[in-house]
C-alpha cells in the first residue's frame, strides 16, 4: 500500500482540531489516570494533557516550549502532537509514536514521572539505547529544524521509542502499513456503475426521490435522487454494499396526483456494474384506524420515518426529528400535499449497520387545529429493523393512553388568542419526534390519546405553549396501554421548577441548537447539588402548579445573586434569554450559610416577575445524594450532596383565564418541596401575604395551615373588583428546622374578575 493511501486511511479516524482549540480524544484502552500532566516531547516542545475520568483527553501545547507549528490528530483513540520540524523525519528516521502523547502518558513518561525519554537509536554503524533528557530535548528539535531536507539526521538511521520495562505495548505507528486503522481501508477498490431504476405501483416507469449510500461508510458514497424526482440514474461507486432507498412515484412529486411507495433495498452488493430496479408493485399500504372511531370526522396525517445507519454511523433517510424532510420524499400523507396514502415494500432485517422504520398517524376530531379541534390521537408503530409484510392496524380503545389536560391562559387585561399549541414528544431508541396535530387548541379541558404498538420502546413527554408564555414541558415517561394521564398546564404563576434537568433536549438543528439526537432521554442531572466547593445549580423556570413542569428555552429576563455568610459572592445582572443551567456557585470549604435569589420575568408578561429568595446551609461533609440510575451529578465521576433548597408551587383554584372572583374568599394553596429525588422536607412552616397594588403594600403575614396531604392553605378575601385592585400579588415565606427558607414572590400572580 502506498504511503499516501495509508495516510488517507488514517485520516478517516482523525478527530480534527480547530485552530487554537485543544483536541478532545476518545479514550484509548487502557486509559491513563484522570488528572492533568505535562509532557516534554523529543523536540523539547511541551504539552499539557488533561485526562477525564472517562478517559477522554484534552491536549494543549504549552507556551513555554521552543514554539513553532504543530499538527495534532487522533488515531485509534490516541492523540499525536507533531512539531513541524519533526515532520520530514517521521517514520523514515523518527518513530512517529514518540509523539503519541496518550501512549507516553500510559508509559509513565510524563514530566512528573520521568526526566527523560528512552529511545533506541540505530546509527549508520551500530544501535544503542539511551535516554534523551527532556532538559536537552530542544537541542534535538533545533537540529531537526536545521536539517529538514530529506528527513535525514547525520549518522542516524532510526530513532525509536525504547519501551520502558513494565509499560504497556505501544500501538502501531499510524504511518506503518498493515495495522489498525490503516489496514481497515484495505487496498484500493474498483469503482463500478450503480444504476437505479424503478417501477411505480401502477406498473409504469417510476419517478424516484431517494438516496444511495455505502453501508460501510457514507463518505465513500452517499448520493441523492432529488425532488421532484428523477428517472433512471447512475452513479460511480466503489465496490461494496449499498443501501438504495427511494420513494417511487407514479409522477413527479409536485404533481399532487402522483402516488408513492417507499421502496428499500437496504443491502445491495456491488462488485461490478449493477442495476437495481426498485419495484413498487409489491408495496403494502399503511393504514392505522381506530376500532371505535369518534362521531366527528377524523382528520388524518400519516408519515413514515426511515433511517439507514451505516456501520460508520452516518445516516440517510428521514429521521423522526427531521420529519419535514418527508415532504420532499413524499412520505407524509395529508390533504394539502395530495398524497392519498403511504405504501412501502417489505424488507428483511439488515446485517450491516441499522435500518429503523417507523410509521405514525395523527388524527384530529373535526379540525386539525384551532378551537374546533377536538380530541387528537397520536399513533406510533415502531417496526424496528425492517418494513413488515403488513402495516394495517386497528387500534382498540382499551389500548389508548388517555391524556386529560387543562390549559390555562396567562392572566391579562387583554383578550387572549388562546394557547399556542399542545405538543407530545416521543423518544424512540433511534430518534425523537413531535409529530402530530395540536396547534392552537382552545383553553380549558380537553382529552387526547396516545398509542404505541411498542410501549416499551417509546418514552413520551407532553408540552404546552400557553398564549403568552414559554413552552412548558412535563416529565418524560413510559406509558402503558389503557393508562390515564392528567395534565394541567400553566395554572398559577411561574415559580422555579423542582424537576431534575434532562441532559438532552430535543431541539431541531436549526441555528446550531444542540441535541438533534436524543439517545438517553431519561438521563437527568440534579437541580442543585454540591460537588466539592461548587454548587451546581440547573434552575429552570416556568414551574406551574405541577412541580415537575419546567421550561428550557430561557426566553425571559433573569437576574441571579448569590451570597456566602451574608456577603455577596457571585451575581449575574439582568440578562435576556439566560437560564442558570447550570451555574456554578462558589461554596466555602466549611459549613456555611448561603443565600440565592433569582428573579425571572417572562417576555409575554413583563409586569409579572417571579422572585425566589432561598437561604440554606451547606458543608463539605453533607451526606451524599442518593440518585436513581439515570440521574447524575453535574460531574458524574464525583459524588455530590443535595443543596437543601425549598421549592414552592402554587395550588390556586383559578379559571382557565387565570382569574378568580373578586369580593369572595379564596384559598391560597401551595406546596413546599425539595428538589426532585431529594426526600421531602419535614417540619416546614409558612406564612403568606397578599398585595393588591403590585407589591407596593402587603397584608400582614398569615400563618398557613398545613393539611393532611402536606399542602398549605391561607384563606384570603378578595376585594370587590376595581381597576386599581384587579391584580393579586402573592408572597410566601417558608422554612424548615434545618435552616432552609424560601420566599416566593409573584407580582400579578392572577387577576380578579
Amino acid at each position, binding site marked *: 500500500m*502506498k504511503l499516501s493511501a495509508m*495516510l488517507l486511511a488514517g485520516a478517516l479516524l482523525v478527530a480534527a482540531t480547530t*485552530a487554537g482549540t485543544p483536541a478532545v480524544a476518545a479514550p484509548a484502552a487502557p486509559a491513563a489516570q484522570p488528572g492533568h500532566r505535562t509532557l516534554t516531547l523529543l523536540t523539547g516542545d511541551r504539552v499539557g494533557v488533561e485526562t477525564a475520568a472517562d478517559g477522554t483527553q484534552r491536549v494543549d501545547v504549552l507556551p513555554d516550549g521552543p514554539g513553532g*507549528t504543530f499538527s495534532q490528530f487522533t488515531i485509534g483513540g490516541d492523540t499525536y502532537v507533531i512539531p513541524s520540524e519533526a515532520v520530514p523525519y517521521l517514520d523514515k528516521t523518527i518513530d512517529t509514536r514518540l509523539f503519541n502523547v496518550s501512549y507516553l502518558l500510559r508509559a509513565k513518561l510524563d514530566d512528573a514521572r520521568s526526566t527523560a525519554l528512552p529511545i533506541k537509536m540505530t546509527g549508520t554503524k551500530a544501535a544503542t539505547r539511551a535516554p534523551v533528557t527532556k532538559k536537552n530535548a530542544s537541542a534535538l528539535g533545533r537540529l531537526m529544524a536545521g536539517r529538514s531536507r530529506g528527513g535525514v539526521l547525520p549518522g542516524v538511521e532510526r530513532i525509536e521509542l525504547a519501551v520502558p520495562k513494565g509499560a504497556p505495548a505501544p500501538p502501531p505507528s499510524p504511518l506503518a502499513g498493515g495495522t489498525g486503522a490503516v489496514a481497515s481501508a484495505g487496498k484500493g477498490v474498483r469503482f463500478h456503475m450503480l444504476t437505479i431504476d424503478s417501477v411505480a405501483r401502477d406498473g409504469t416507469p417510476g419517478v424516484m426521490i431517494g438516496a444511495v449510500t455505502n453501508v460501510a461508510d457514507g*463518505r465513500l458514497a452517499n448520493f441523492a435522487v432529488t425532488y421532484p424526482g428523477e428517472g433512471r440514474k*447512475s*452513479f460511480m461507486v466503489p465496490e461494496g454494499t449499498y443501501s438504495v432507498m427511494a420513494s417511487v412515484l407514479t409522477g413527479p412529486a409536485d404533481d399532487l396526483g402522483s402516488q408513492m411507495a417507499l421502496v428499500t433495498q437496504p443491502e445491495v452488493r456491488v462488485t461490478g456494474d449493477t442495476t437495481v430496479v426498485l419495484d413498487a408493485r409489491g408495496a403494502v399500504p399503511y393504514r392505522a384506524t381506530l376500532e371505535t372511531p369518534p362521531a366527528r370526522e377524523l382528520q388524518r396525517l400519516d408519515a413514515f420515518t426511515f433511517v439507514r445507519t451505516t456501520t460508520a454511523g452516518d445516516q440517510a433517510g428521514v429521521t423522526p426529528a427531521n420529519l419535514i424532510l418527508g415532504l420532499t420524499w413524499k412520505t407524509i400523507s395529508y390533504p394539502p400535499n395530495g398524497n392519498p396514502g403511504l405504501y412501502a415494500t417489505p424488507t428483511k432485517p439488515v446485517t450491516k449497520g441499522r435500518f429503523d422504520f417507523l410509521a405514525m398517524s395523527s388524527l384530529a376530531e373535526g379540525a386539525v387545529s384551532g378551537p374546533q379541534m377536538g380530541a387528537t390521537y397520536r399513533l406510533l408503530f415502531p417496526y424496528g429493523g425492517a418494513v413488515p409484510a403488513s402495516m394495517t392496524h386497528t387500534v382498540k380503545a382499551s389500548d389508548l393512553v388517555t391524556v386529560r389536560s387543562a390549559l390555562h391562559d396567562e392572566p391579562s387585561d387583554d383578550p387572549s388568542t388562546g394557547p399556542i399549541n399542545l405538543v407530545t414528544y416521543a423518544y424512540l431508541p433511534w430518534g425523537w419526534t413531535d409529530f402530530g396535530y395540536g396547534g392552537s387548541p382552545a383553553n380549558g379541558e380537553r382529552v387526547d390519546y396516545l398509542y404505541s404498538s411498542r410501549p416499551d420502546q417509546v418514552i413520551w413527554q407532553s408540552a404546552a405553549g400557553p398564549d403568552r408564555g414559554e413552552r412548558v414541558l412535563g416529565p418524560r415517561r413510559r406509558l402503558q396501554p389503557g393508562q390515564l394521564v392528567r395534565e394541567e398546564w400553566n395554572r398559577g404563576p411561574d415559580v422555579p421548577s423542582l424537576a431534575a434537568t434532562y441532559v438532552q433536549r430535543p431541539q431541531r438543528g436549526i441555528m446550531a441548537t444542540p441535541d438533534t439526537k436524543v439517545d438517553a432521554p431519561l438521563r437527568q442531572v440534579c437541580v442543585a447539588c454540591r460537588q466539592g466547593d461548587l454548587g451546581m445549580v440547573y434552575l429552570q423556570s416556568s414551574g406551574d402548579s405541577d412541580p415537575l413542569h419546567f421550561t428550557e428555552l430561557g426566553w425571559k429576563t433573569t437576574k441571579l445573586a448569590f451570597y456566602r455568610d451574608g456577603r455577596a459572592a457571585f451575581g449575574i445582572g439582568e440578562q435576556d434569554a439566560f437560564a442558570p443551567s447550570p451555574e456554578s456557585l462558589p461554596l466555602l470549604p466549611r459549613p456555611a450559610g448561603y443565600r440565592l435569589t433569582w428573579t425571572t420575568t417572562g417576555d409575554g408578561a413583563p409586569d409579572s416577575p417571579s422572585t425566589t429568595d432561598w437561604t440554606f446551609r451547606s458543608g463539605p461533609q453533607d451526606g451524599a445524594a442518593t440518585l436513581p440510575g439515570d440521574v447524575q451529578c453535574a460531574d458524574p465521576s464525583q459524588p455530590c450532596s443535595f443543596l437543601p433548597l425549598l421549592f414552592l408551587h402554587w395550588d390556586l383554584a383559578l379559571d382557565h383565564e387565570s382569574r378568580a372572583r373578586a369580593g369572595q374568599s379564596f384559598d391560597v394553596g401551595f406546596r413546599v418541596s425539595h428538589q426532585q429525588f431529594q426526600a421531602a422536607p419535614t417540619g416546614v412552616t409558612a406564612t403568606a401575604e397578599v398585595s393588591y397594588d403590585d407589591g407596593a403594600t402587603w397584608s400582614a403575614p398569615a400563618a398557613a395551615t398545613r393539611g393532611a396531604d402536606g399542602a398549605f392553605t391561607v384563606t384570603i378575601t378578595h376585594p370587590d373588583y376595581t381597576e386599581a385592585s384587579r391584580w393579586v400579588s402573592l408572597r410566601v415565606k417558608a422554612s424548615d428546622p434545618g435552616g432552609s427558607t424560601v420566599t416566593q414572590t409573584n407580582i400579578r400572580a392572577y387577576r380578579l374578575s
Partner: protein
Amino acid sequence: MRIQRIMMLTAVLLAAFTPMAGATEQATPSTRTICPQDADPASCLLKVATGDAGAKAASGPLTAGDLQEAYRLPADLLGGGQTVAVVVPYDIPSAEQDLATYRAANGLPACDEVFTCFRKVNQRGGDTPPPSSPSYAPHAAAGLDLTSAACPNCRLLLVQADDPTFANMGLAVDQAVAQGADAVVVMWGFTESADQAAQAAHFDHPGVTITSAAGTGFNTDGRQTVPSAFASVIAVGGTELFRDPAVPRGWRENVWRDTGSGCSLYVARPAWQRAGACGGRRTVADVSAVSSSSTPVQIYSSALGGWAAASGTPLAAAFIAGVYGLAGTDSTAPAGKRLYARARYLHDITGGANGVCAGSNLCAAGQGYDGPSGMGTPDGTGAF
C-alpha cells in the same frame, strides 16, 4: 519566536504531512462562487475571495510571474505564432480591456496594433456578438488571464457561444478550431449525462489540444463533468501552490482538497491511461495546476470590480491550455498520449487528497498518477 499554533488537521494536511508554512498557515479564505443565474450549481467552478482578501488581490494572489517561475516556463521565449482559444458563453464586452489591464500589471506584452494578440468571434466566426452577460465575464477574464500568464506570446481568441448550452459550447469549440486555434480551453462544464456522447465530436479535433476543468470534489454525485471527462479533452485538476525556500524547487505543491476527480460514468478509458480503480472507464484528471482558494491566483475583471483572488479548476484548465500553446508541439499524437508518456517533465504531486476513496488513488495523491493531480503539474513544457 515562531508563531505557536495547532493546525487544523484535515485529510489533506495529514496526507501531505508536511510542515506548514507560508500560505497554508492561513485559514482558508472565504470565497464566493461565480454562478450565473439559472446555472446548474454543479457547473459553478470558479470562485473569488470575498472581503479583504479580494480587495488586496492585486498584491497577494499568485501573479503571472509566480506561475511562470513555479512551473519553470520559458514564457519569454516560446509561444510565438500559437493561438489559444478561450470559449465562454455570451458576449463579454469588457474582455479586451480587462485583459489589457492584467497584462500590463504583470509585465506581459500588450495586445495592440503591433502585437495583435486578442480577437473575439461568435460561435459562427462572425463579429456580431451574442447577448452579453456580466455573469460570465469573470470566466472570460480567468481564461484570458491564465492563458496569458502561461503563454504571453500566444495569440488569444475569445469565442463567445450563443448561450451556455452544451450544444452551443460545442459549436464554439468547433469554431475555435476553424479559426486556427492550437489549443482551446472550455470555461464551462456540465455534469455527465447519458446523452453526452452526442456532443463528444465537438470536443475531438486531432492536432488541437482541448482542456477543461476537472470539476469540484471527488466523485461528486457519482459522476464527472464534461467536456473534461471526454477522452479527447485534457482534464485539468487543481493544486495548492506556495513558496517554500526549504525545498529545491522553491515551491511546494499539494492536491487541492476541492479539486475534482473520479471515474467517468460513460466514457471509456483512453489507451494512454492505465486501468486503475476505474477499470475500463476514463479517470479524471490528466494533469493539474494551481487553483486552490488557499493559494489563489490573480485575475482582473471589471465585472468583479477589478482585481480578484480567484480559485477553481477552470483557472488551471486555462493555464494548461496556455502551456500547450507555449509548447507549440506540432504532433498528430493525442495530447493525452504525449502527456502520459513524458512524466519526467512534470512535477509529481504526492501530497493531499480531495475525498475518501477506499484506498484507491482516485482521491489521494501519491507517486505517479493519481486522480486529483493526474500525472502532475508542469515542469517546463516537455510534457505538452
